[in-house]
């Protein structure tokens, strides 16, 4: 249900500017590259223009584009009131030029079908041409499709330096397979890589679709899994998660996406058979095979696959040994809580790959599980950080200021849920201005990549030890560089024998970043403790403890970081009682999912208590998901893995029909339709899950 209100646009300074800008930056695109770009030339038709052009109407069949020149493609007689606009797009089907052309034509039709509200005026635009640019990250080239309306479809290719390339006849299929896979990896990664950050995309002029639902022909997930062997060897070109220091064939964004797509589509059998076929030629595939088996809950087969491979390796250590051991250690740790075995396995993984963060991460986690605080801190300190790596986010190719007068950001009026879609951003800004600066500037909130993970560990440790004891551990184990320097500076009159630094021999240098994390932890703990004390005090006095939603959110996030989920939930809940907040909702959703796990595994509840508790949690989860779905839609985003993963849990409990009725009973029709489209239809039609239909 695409509407004009769901299409953000940016007006170009001059027609063609965005394409030129993109072309000039192709050389700078790295790893996955930028989101896809859609540009349009719009005009206001007069009687004569519409008449003269209808003669050469053509079908949407792509023309061969041999010997084409870029300027030929974009020069055009200037039309009345002609303007250029652009937006970004992720998740559209880019598996062939026809699919792209169909999508472009749909967009153009929506723009043309009725007058557009354009910077306060009604404008009856027609689209003269509309283009799509998709970065092929495997081959480092830009694939472009142009639809002239009425007229032909053309597609062409630019290499990184902006030169037009010929698409060879025999090579065309491979090119489009890569382009398609690049798009899937890009759109899935942007969402999954930023799960912790709430999947936030700061490039507002982007339409984000569910890539698995946008196939013009065929099942996208299935196509992707089947294409995987074709692009596998070039996977490292796409880069990898920020905690990987050297990407490998089995550890990169392509492989992460394979696992995520398989899980989302619940298509484990296909993935398993594709990987099993690859195994003889690519023994390292066992790493992915084991992951897919675990994801599909085929634990015993996974364990056997790992065991057999390690046995076959013997004393001759394969390159991927560390990765395979990490998969095993993670299983032992998270599914079996067998921290002792996990520790041994993780240690062997560290010995194989001491410069990778993940083996260390699992070793730290094992030590925490074993309550071995000293070793947890020592291994944390020894972990190799990757300060230069960032999570994959969309970045603007064409600079646009936040408050640019060229930004056309319509309100999608097809879905209305007042408290969510009608949220006044001015109110939020005002809250922001009024909030205590110390609360807004809590530095732990901005930790990135491996530092974010390391901080999580530190909070887990402090939950076990308390702050005072943690400080004692710190000074027992570590020396700060400054202390050492002071101690090892010889006294002015040297006594010639004793080195005062000797006392530090048993300690090690505390890494600067870890020292910094201790300070951030202190800030968080201070804020948290103060809040809790204040609240107790107010409650003791029977006075109402009032905070703005943003303040509750910041307190909630602080508690959340510290692992105090109950207190965090209280804060988010109070804030949400006052107004909607996407961030609070996402975090609260996560906490409910954790609580749901706890309830399910609880042995202390009677079965009726358990059912009631689950029912309550399911209802809260549904509520949050639907609201967030409306919020995302309001910001032109129809795809969220957080929501799909959360809803899949509820679907398993209730079944689709009951869930659908539940939503219908609580929300207005437009919202129900949206939830059906973006959430329930996915489970019904795009997965191999065992849901009633």
């Amino acid at each position, binding site marked *: 249900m695409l509407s004009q209100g769901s299409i953000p646009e940016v007006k170009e300074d001059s027609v063609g500017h965005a394409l030129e800008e993109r072309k000039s930056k192709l050389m700078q695109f790295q790893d996955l590259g930028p989101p896809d770009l859609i540009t349009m030339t719009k005009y206001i038709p007069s009687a004569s223009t519409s008449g003269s052009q209808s003669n050469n109407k053509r079908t949407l069949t792509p023309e061969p584009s041999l010997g084409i020149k870029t300027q030929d493609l974009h020069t055009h007689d200037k039309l009345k009131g002609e303007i250029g606009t652009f937006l970004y797009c992720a998740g559209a089907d880019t598996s062939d030029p026809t699919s792209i052309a169909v999508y472009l034509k749909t967009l153009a039709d929506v723009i043309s079908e009725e007058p557009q509200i354009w910077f306060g005026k009604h404008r009856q635009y027609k689209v003269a041409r509309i283009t799509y640019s998709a970065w092929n990250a495997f081959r480092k080239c830009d694939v472009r499709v142009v639809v002239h309306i009425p007229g032909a479809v053309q597609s062409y290719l630019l290499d990184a330096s902006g030169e037009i390339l010929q698409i060879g006849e025999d090579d065309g299929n491979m090119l489009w397979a890569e382009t398609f896979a690049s798009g899937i990896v890009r759109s899935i990664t942007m969402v999954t890589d930023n799960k912790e950050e709430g999947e936030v995309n700061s490039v507002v002029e982007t339409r984000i679709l569910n890539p698995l639902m946008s196939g013009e022909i065929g099942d996208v997930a299935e196509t992707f899994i089947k294409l995987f062997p074709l692009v596998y060897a070039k996977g490292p070109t796409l880069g990898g998660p920020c905690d990987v220091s050297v990407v490998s064939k089995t550890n990169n964004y392509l492989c992460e996406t394979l696992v995520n797509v398989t899980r989302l589509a619940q298509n484990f059998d296909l993935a398993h058979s594709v990987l099993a076929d690859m195994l003889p030629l690519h023994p390292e595939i066992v790493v992915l095979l084991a992951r897919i088996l675990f994801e599909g809950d085929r634990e015993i087969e996974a*364990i056997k696959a790992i065991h057999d491979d390690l046995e076959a390796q013997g004393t001759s250590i394969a390159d991927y040994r560390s990765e395979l051991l990490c998969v095993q250690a993670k299983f032992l740790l998270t599914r*079996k809580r067998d921290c002792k075995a996990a520790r*041994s396995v993780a240690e062997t993984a560290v010995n194989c790959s001491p410069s990778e963060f993940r083996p260390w991460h699992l070793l730290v986690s094992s030590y925490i599980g074993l309550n071995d605080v000293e070793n947890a801190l020592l291994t944390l300190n020894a972990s190799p950080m990757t300060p230069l790596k960032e999570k994959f986010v969309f970045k603007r190719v064409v600079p646009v200021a936040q408050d640019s007068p060229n930004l056309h950001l319509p309100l999608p009026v097809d879905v209305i849920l007042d408290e969510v879609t009608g949220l006044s951003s001015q109110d939020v800004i005002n809250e922001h201005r009024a909030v205590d600066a110390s609360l807004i500037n809590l530095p732990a909130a901005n930790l990135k990549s491996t530092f974010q993970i390391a901080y999580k560990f530190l909070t887990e440790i402090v939950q076990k030890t308390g702050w005072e004891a943690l400080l004692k551990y710190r000074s027992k184990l570590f020396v700060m560089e400054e202390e050492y320097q002071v101690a090892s500076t010889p006294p002015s009159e040297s006594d010639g024998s004793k080195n005062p630094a*000797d006392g530090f021999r048993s*300690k090690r*240098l505390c890494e600067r970043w870890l020292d910094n994390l201790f300070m951030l932890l202190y800030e968080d703990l201070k804020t948290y403790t103060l809040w809790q004390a204040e609240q107790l005090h107010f409650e003791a006095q029977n006075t109402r403890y009032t905070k703005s939603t943003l303040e509750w959110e910041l307190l909630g996030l602080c508690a959340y970081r510290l692992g105090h989920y109950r207190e965090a939930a209280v804060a988010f809940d109070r804030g949400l009682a006052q107004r909607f907040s996407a961030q609070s909702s996402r975090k609260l959703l996560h906490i409910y999912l954790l609580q749901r796990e706890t309830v399910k595994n609880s042995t202390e509840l009677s079965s009726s208590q358990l059912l009631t508790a689950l029912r309550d949690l399911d209802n809260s989860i549904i509520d949050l998901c639907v609201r967030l779905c409306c919020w995302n839609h309001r910001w032109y985003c129809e795809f969220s893995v957080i929501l799909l993963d959360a809803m899949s849990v509820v679907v398993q409990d209730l079944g689709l029909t009951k869930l659908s009725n539940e939503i219908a009973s609580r929300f207005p029709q437009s919202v129900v339709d949206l939830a059906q489209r973006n959430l329930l239809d996915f489970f019904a039609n795009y997965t191999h899950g065992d849901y009633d239909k």
Partner: protein
Amino acid sequence: MSTDPVPMEVSLTVGKLDASLALLTTKDHHVIEFPTMLLPDNVKAGSIVKIQVSEDAEKELQEFQEFQNLQSEIMEKYGTHTPSKPEVEV
């Protein structure tokens, strides 16, 4: 088949050292970052140290066996159909 372990010996000068790392240089211009902690006490900038490296085949075998044992345990514990096992074995 396998050659006898030949220990490598090398002489190094200790350069700058801080709490964690010392920079050691060899006569033929290799630089090694070495954990200060693993240096003998009293070593300071300007000291000369001798480093001997030898392969520890015995320990290697022992570690390998420990690893094999751990893997067998994991396999036994989590990689077999525990309910069906007694029926077959007894």
